[in-house]
């Protein structure tokens, strides 16, 4: 009787023995790398209706973040400034500029500029800027060196594990309260030996329970 299975089928058990575990590992690695918010979310750099450069305003000219995002210490949201804030200066500076035309138009008509949100934190996570600023977390810890970006992009994954990394060990992320908006701050800082800090590290208990952020 002729062989029912051709000879090459003898290799199937061996191929499966090696191939199956390898492909499982490969799939796990692929999901770990390409399904992570480090891949799916970080690097998002939408085009904006106005070519506003943070590198020029915050970097070169050294304006404080809070000149425009003035609600950051008081509210959950670091508000995108109204057009009036742009016009504080641009009424006089480059009043003929082509690139500022949408700003002038918005100021005259009262129609807001539709900026594209860069950091799209899902609605299921409640984030409040105010306590983070009050605790002394620098802007650049989450937003990166905005003062070096012409077009703002998302630098960090903003994933849950990324949040928790810091919530579990906030100490190394902190800086003096008056250095929060200094994006270049890169000094060693010990929160417990800072006489100006009201709440020491022990009193600072970032929530780790679910309802701390999901509420």
């Amino acid at each position, binding site marked *: 009787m002729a062989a029912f299975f051709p000879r090459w089928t003898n290799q199937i058990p061996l191929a499966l023995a090696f191939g199956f575990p390898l492909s499982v590992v490969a799939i796990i690695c692929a999901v770990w790398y*390409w399904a992570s918010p*480090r891949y*799916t979310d970080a*690097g998002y750099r939408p085009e904006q209706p106005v070519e506003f450069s943070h590198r020029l305003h915050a970097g070169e*000219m050294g*304006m404080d973040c809070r*000149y425009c995002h003035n609600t950051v210490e008081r509210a959950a949201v670091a508000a*995108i400034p109204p057009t009036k804030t742009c016009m504080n200066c641009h009424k006089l500076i480059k009043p003929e500029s082509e690139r500022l035309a949408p700003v002038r138009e918005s100021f005259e008509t009262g129609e807001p500029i539709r900026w594209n949100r860069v950091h799209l934190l899902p609605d*299921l996570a409640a984030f409040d800027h105010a306590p983070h600023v009050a605790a002394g977390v620098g802007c650049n810890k989450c937003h990166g060196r905005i003062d070096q970006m012409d077009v703002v992009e998302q630098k960090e994954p903003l994933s849950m594990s990324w949040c928790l990394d810091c919530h579990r060990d906030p100490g190394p992320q902190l800086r003096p309260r008056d250095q929060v908006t200094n994006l270049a701050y890169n000094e060693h800082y010990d929160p417990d030996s800072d006489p100006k800090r009201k709440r020491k590290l022990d009193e600072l208990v970032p929530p780790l329970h679910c309802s701390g952020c999901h509420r």
Partner: protein
Amino acid sequence: MPQPSTLRFVLGALVAITAACQGDRSAEPPVHLIRNMDHQQRFDAQEANPFFADGRGMRLPVDGTVAVGQLRDDGHLHRGRGLDGKLADALPSQIKLSRTFLKRGQERYGIYCTPCHDSAGTGEGIIVQRGAGMPRPPAFTDARLLSEPLGHFYDVVTNGVRNMPGYADQIPVEDRWAIVAYVRTLQRREYATLDHVPKRAAKQLGWTPPK
């Protein structure tokens, strides 16, 4: 066995996918396979809402209405003017002058005023220095400004003057007074004499008043 052309396609696709790295820039919004509750049935601050004709999620107050707690009826605190309608030359009674208050003023001044007025108040801020069209504001030590009452500075910060815009929208009332108080200290340090220095501070610094 699969055809070589299929194999080449699969390999090519794999290479194309795997060549993309974490953190690569993209103008396309993030793709989430599982979108549970990413967008909930609510509108966040500054979010667009197509329900309204103007597209704003945040509604403007109805014309002629005042929200609870927003009635600015204290002439001194909110307008810098006394009962006689003249600019007051004192801090409102609600505000206590203290070291922390002045420090607050210094910090707020640094955020909102230094771009034009510079940190010492000479009017040579970075925006003026760049010469892009912003005229140089007067130094706080100008004789005219030295004789102005505190209320004048509050009024200017709130409503603006000449080329300066008003900052009522950006800076809360108490912070505006803190800035005003700090501007006064910037003026003082220009013509201060040893008599102005508290005795204890002078002793610590080793300054002795002239005999």
